[in-house]
């Protein structure tokens, strides 16, 4: 487990890590040439059939080729994907947090704050010097500026002095809290990157593929075992990636996927779509094909299961028995699940069974993942995020589910897709519905807890990294747009795990889990927030500082209220009555905030 202190992180030589990544990369390339020599100089050269011909000679040639193949596979899987790319990724992630520290630590030290506690939960408080300065009514200039208390402070007037001291103390404590959130977020992301890299390297030693056998008395038997194992190797690697036991990052998954032959990739999609579909780092086209196949098969499986259970039900004589009622309830649950899946299928499929096209923008729907567990999850995109110049991923909030009975979630991504196209018809924007977490079902008590966001954080981090890994051409302008609890989801993920995006948009937020924009690890000027003035959420800031407040520090834009109902106004951000807010959002999605 990572136990880096902030000083350890600050002083870490990330360049050495990057240089090591380069060394493994050059090593891979250089020793691959040696493997190639075995094929060219040995098998095709000195040991060619003209020079050496017999059954034994065939076996020797086969052995040499197998040895070279195995080594090249190892070089790709271990030396390149894990050791080289892993070191580059770790260096990039840790260096990003070092840059945050370079900004933050001087602020903490120069302003008279002190860091204490454990590296997994640092506390930032007032130093003795700052406490004394406040008590003596001789605060530093920055604190005077923050409180607006200018001029001479009067320590001889006890009542006024106490008021001033209280105000100074509150302001200083607020700033300390913000720095604490910021420092904790930096350390959380750094520890996460460190632990991820360490975990990825540790898993490479678990259950590696066998090497070809050595020549000797057991060669024939061992060779047979080796060949059998070899034929299942790619599927086993895919399974380990899908169940998370490989420890590979989305970038590494992508490198692995690109290293497969077309036939291997096609076979995985056809034979194991349930492994291919949900994995970040596999290109969207392949995921879509795989997920649609799984969706089709899940619906059919539910049909069979329901028919089976109905037959069982008809065999129970007493319709008021516990057994009968329980079975009836189970059937109802399965029917409901089937309806939800069929609804999803209908929305993304046309009458001919092909991927549906969203007519207003002419973009196809892509299914990146779905799951019926909990409230149900789905990741659906209008337009292919791998090909689009802009990608906007919408993260919905409380009450969102796979069911989406009224089509609200789809309506919203369609509205955002329309807006992006209107704003910039020359460059494609893919609009993703990211319901990749189990959203709270109700406002109280579920949405007052951060556990839903904490559980989804790793998934959102991985999703953004996956989009970066599979993007074709230049990196897209990538935005996360949260609504309500979806903003908490984004904030918690950004602060604890990190999200690899260019922009964040918070709409109708109940707080994002941190008190300052600086803790999110995204350029502060690219974090935007909005809330209409009638939205009921302004009275329910349960997850920290309001991101539309000046203290939080985001770029705030206006949204119009629609009607007068505070509850309704929590959900009007994509209505036609809020064209101003929608236009501001579209500017962010399309990278035109500077215009």
């Amino acid at each position, binding site marked *: 487990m*990572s*136990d*880096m202190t902030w000083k*350890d*992180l600050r*002083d*870490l*030589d990330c360049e*050495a*890590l990057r240089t*090591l990544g380069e*060394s493994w990369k050059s*090593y891979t390339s*250089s*020793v691959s040439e*040696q493997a190639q*020599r*075995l094929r060219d*100089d*040995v098998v095709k*050269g*000195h*040991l060619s*059939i*003209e*020079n*050496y*011909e*017999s*059954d*034994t*000679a*065939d*076996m*020797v040639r086969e*052995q040499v080729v197998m*040895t070279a193949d*195995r*080594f090249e596979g*190892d070089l790709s899987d*271990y*030396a390149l994907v894990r*050791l080289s790319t892993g*070191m580059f990724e770790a260096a990039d992630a840790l260096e990003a947090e070092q840059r945050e520290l370079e900004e933050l630590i001087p602020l903490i030290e120069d302003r008279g704050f002190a860091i204490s506690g454990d590296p997994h939960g640092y506390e930032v408080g007032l130093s003795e010097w700052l406490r004394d300065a406040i008590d003596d009514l001789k605060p530093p200039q920055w604190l005077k500026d923050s409180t607006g208390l200018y001029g001479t402070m009067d320590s001889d007037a006890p009542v006024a002095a106490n008021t001033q001291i209280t105000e100074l103390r509150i302001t200083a404590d607020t700033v300390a809290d913000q720095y604490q959130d910021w420092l904790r977020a930096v350390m959380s992301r750094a520890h996460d990157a*460190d632990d991820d*890299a*360490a*975990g990825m*390297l*540790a898993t*490479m*030693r678990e259950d590696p593929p066998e*090497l070809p056998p*050595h*020549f*000797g*008395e*057991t*060669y*024939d038997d061992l060779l047979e075992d080796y060949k059998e194992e070899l034929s299942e190797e790619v599927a086993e690697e895919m399974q380990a990636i899908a169940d998370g036991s490989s420890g590979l990052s989305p970038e590494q998954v992508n490198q692995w996927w690109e290293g497969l032959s077309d036939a291997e990739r096609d076979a995985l999609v056809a034979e194991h779509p349930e492994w291919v579909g949900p994995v970040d780092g596999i290109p969207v086209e392949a995921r879509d094909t795989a997920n649609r196949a799984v969706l089709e098969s899940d619906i059919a499986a539910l049909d069979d299961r329901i028919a089976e259970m109905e037959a069982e039900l008809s065999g129970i004589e007493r319709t008021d028995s516990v057994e009968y009622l329980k079975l009836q309830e189970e059937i109802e649950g399965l029917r409901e699940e089937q309806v939800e899946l069929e609804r999803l299928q209908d929305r993304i499929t046309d009458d001919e069974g092909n991927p549906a096209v969203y007519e207003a923008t002419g973009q196809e729907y892509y299914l990146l993942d779905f799951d019926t567990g909990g409230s149900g999850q789905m990741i659906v995109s209008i337009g292919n995020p791998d090909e689009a110049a802009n990608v906007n991923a919408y993260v919905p909030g409380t009450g969102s589910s796979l069911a989406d009975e009224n089509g609200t979630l789809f309506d919203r991504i369609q509205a955002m897709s329309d807006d992006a196209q209107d704003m910039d018809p020359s460059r494609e924007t893919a609009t993703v519905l990211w319901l990749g977490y189990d959203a709270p079902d109700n406002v109280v008590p579920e949405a007052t807890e951060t556990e839903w966001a904490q559980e989804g954080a790793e998934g959102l981090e991985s999703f953004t990294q996956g989009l970066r890994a599979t993007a074709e051409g230049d990196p897209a302008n990538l935005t996360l747009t949260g609504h309500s609890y979806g903003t908490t989801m984004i904030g918690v993920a950004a602060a604890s795990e990190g999200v690899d995006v260019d922009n964040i948009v918070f709409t109708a937020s109940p707080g994002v889990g941190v008190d300052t924009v600086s803790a999110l690890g995204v350029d502060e000027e690219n974090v935007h927030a909005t809330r209409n003035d009638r939205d009921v959420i302004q009275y329910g800031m349960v997850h920290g500082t309001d991101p539309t407040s000046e203290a939080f520090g985001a770029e705030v834009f206006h949204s119009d209220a629609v009607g007068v109902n505070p509850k309704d106004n929590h959900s009007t951000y994509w209505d036609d009555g809020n064209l101003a807010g929608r236009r501001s959002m579209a500017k962010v999605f399309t990278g035109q905030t500077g215009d």
Partner: protein
Amino acid sequence: MSGADVFTMDPEEVHNAVAVLFEVEAEVEGQTVAVADATAEVAGNLKDANAALGAALDEAGEWWKVFRAGGFTGLVGNTGEYLATCAEEAVEIDDYNAGKFASFADHDLYPGRASENASARPDW
């Protein structure tokens, strides 16, 4: 396949193949030691910084050197020694053991692969 009754071998070419195999073995060993040493050094600094990556990197570098690159060079060496033995005395694969290389190979052709090294092998 060549067929059960066919057997031709140009011993000189087989010896040349062995020479390439031993060169590849030595080259990969050398480069692997270099990258593993560099890895151990960076891993040491990471361990000093309380980074979890330090120990993991150290173990990964060593594992690669011993088991995967080491496994490869072991295979290449084994094939070379088998072929060298084969060139001297046409043994079958299943009859081969490393002792035969030590006994039959022409060590003038393979300096540095003395029988005392071969005898240290597990299947001696």
